[in-house]
């Protein structure tokens, strides 16, 4: 897969403080790319460099193979973490103005604005001022402003913060739809679990360094170690107790945390390279009713913590 955006060995310092240290990322065309890391890791600085708001001290960025230039702003849609619109300007005028700044002509801009206002069912807001809208409503306008010029690359910094669950889903669907239509999307967030299932590529950034990147399933496979959660309704207490003793000698066994309706015995078993899940399951069957058997796939959050600890 070819890369739409490539950032190579980007470094950026603010005085004594290093915001980015030799960070490279490659965002494949048509992917949803997660730029993940805790607060203050340098995500926003990297995004601002991609948007040409700040210039890197070192390194270079290419979009579709060409080094970034002023005209590329038309190819990028950016929703910053700090959402903001002109409070005392009418919604419609504001949307048209911002779209025109991105290079649309007025006629085209108002056609698309109408389309989106109808689609998100907010047509009657056209003549309202932002200060008359609620925060969530303003976020919808912000979303329209970000995508209206149909950019190749969409960047959302903390995409779902400020949306209620219903609107967050609505926006999520719209973003997936845009991807279907060919857009490439970057999500940047410190709440890794919120975008995990959406992303197909991720880069983890911590303390101005990139610590891990790649295709998400490949990364997860790398970190998976044959761990299973099992829930069992024990019928033969005595035999089960001795079996559990043997099991603990072979594998790493701990209490598992998941919800069931009964009061089953819940265990997490790390098998590593010893044994297969089928074997394990057939053993448990002998002591009662197995109601739960799931492989534990490491979450991005776990992987992040693990990588940070390894790098220490």
């Amino acid at each position, binding site marked *: 897969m070819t890369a739409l955006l490539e950032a190579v060995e980007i470094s950026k310092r603010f005085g004594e403080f290093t915001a980015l240290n030799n960070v490279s990322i490659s965002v494949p065309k048509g992917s949803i790319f997660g730029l993940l890391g805790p607060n203050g890791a340098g995500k926003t600085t990297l995004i601002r460099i991609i948007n*040409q*708001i700040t210039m890197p001290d070192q390194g270079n960025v290419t979009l579709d193979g060409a080094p970034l230039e002023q005209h590329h*702003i038309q190819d990028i849609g*950016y929703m910053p973490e*700090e*959402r903001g619109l002109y409070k005392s300007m009418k919604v419609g005028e504001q949307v048209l103005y*911002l779209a025109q*700044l991105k290079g649309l002509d007025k006629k085209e801009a108002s056609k698309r604005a109408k389309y989106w206002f109808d689609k998100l069912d907010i047509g009657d807001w056209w003549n309202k001022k932002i200060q008359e809208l609620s925060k969530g409503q303003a976020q919808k306008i*912000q979303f329209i402003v970000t995508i209206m010029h149909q950019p190749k690359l969409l960047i959302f910094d903390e995409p779902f913060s400020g949306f209620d669950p219903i609107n967050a889903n609505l926006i999520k669907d719209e973003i997936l739809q845009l991807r279907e239509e060919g857009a490439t999307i970057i999500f940047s967030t410190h709440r890794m679990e919120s975008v995990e299932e959406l992303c197909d590529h991720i880069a983890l950034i911590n303390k101005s360094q990139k610590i891990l990147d790649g295709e998400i399933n490949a990364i997860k496979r790398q970190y998976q170690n044959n761990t299973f959660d099992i829930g069992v309704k024990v019928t033969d207490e005595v035999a089960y107790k001795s079996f559990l003793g043997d099991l603990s000698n072979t594998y790493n066994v701990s209490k598992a945390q998941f919800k069931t309706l009964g009061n089953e015995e819940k265990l997490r078993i790390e098998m590593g390279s010893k044994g297969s899940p089928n074997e394990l399951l057939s053993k448990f069957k002998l002591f009662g009713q197995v109601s739960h058997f799931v492989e534990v796939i490491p979450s991005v959050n776990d992987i992040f913590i693990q990588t940070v600890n390894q790098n220490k």
Partner: protein
Amino acid sequence: MSILSLIIRREYVARVRNKSFLIMTFLSPLIAVGMISLISYLTQLNGEDKRTVVIVDDSRLFDTVFVNTDQTTYLDLTKEGMETAKKLAKDESYYGLIYINKDVKTSDNALTFYGDESPSYDFITDIEKKIEKKLENERLIAQGIDLVILENAKASVSLNVENFSGEQSSKMSNWVKAAFGGGAGYLLMMFIIIYGNMVMRSVIEEKTNRIIEVIISSVKPFQLMLGKILGTTLAGITQFVIWVLIGSILLVVLSSIFGIDPSAASEVNPLSSQVKDISSDPSLVVEILEEIKKLPLLQLVIGFFIYFVGGYFLYSSIYAAIGAAVDNETDTQQFMLPIIMPLMLAIYVGFFSVIDNPHGTVATIFSIIPLTSPIVMLMRIPFDVPGWQIAISVTLLILSFVGTVWFGSKIYRVGILMYGKKPTYKEIFKWLKY
């Protein structure tokens, strides 16, 4: 439409539609005219205040000196004696009592004014003059000098000033030039303070609305800054034009209704107090018009344009940079000094040094230094400034404007994305290196 004109249009519309702008535009001429009318009415009222002054003249020298006027009635109570006069003046609450000792010819200490309120400065001067004059005449007569001969011997001359190419000028022409230059300089200062502030507020507004990051991902900070300055300037010009229109209409209407002489209002401004005397004398009006015709008008208009635009742009880019550096308007106070100081300096140098000696060292130097040159040079231009000085001054002005815009957009680029920090000069200096 180009990006710059889009920004200019938005800024213009945003300013002009703003409620406080509308209120300011239409209310301030009303308030200003109202104030002027009120003050001139009060001045007239004050002038009409009649007063009675009691005179007790023990020297009997001044019978003919104190002549009643519209304002002042003198009541000679010398015969009734000091005690009675004092009592009467107090009971009737007269303005006061002047006592003249009989030793007035020889003593310096022979005059006393009694009164509950202290008399006005004008009144004291007037009385002193009257008595001095009379005493002088008395002494001249005592020396055997005929006053009629003395009066006839008095001479009056006026110096004709002419340059080597034969152009005449006069005191009047200098006065007209000073008024022109001073007016232009003052106007520029007001314009800078009012609309520079507007530029700054508009930058801060974008920061507090947090829209700045969206905008700056679409346009260059330089474009945004320039667009803001130009858009606000256009709004300012609109406001000025409306003010002038409304103001003149109101003045005409008011003066025809209440019969207030509009030129009397200019008494409020001490600088133009002479205008009153002038306008009441038709020959002087003609003379002034003649002088205005003689001014280097083309040079004036061009100079006015260059310095007005250059000076305004220079200062508003500083204002914009300040707006970018801070979070809210309260934090701007510490950065106001570098703006207000040179403006004040320029105005003072202009009004004291330029009018006194337009080509003196101080005036020349300050008309070349960029931050003061717009105002000082505007004031000097009517007095024929050598071409090389204008050339240096304009070059420096343009260079420093470019410099400030560069400096400003640097601060802008960093500052607009800085939240929550109260910046110091040191901090801002560091931003330049980012």
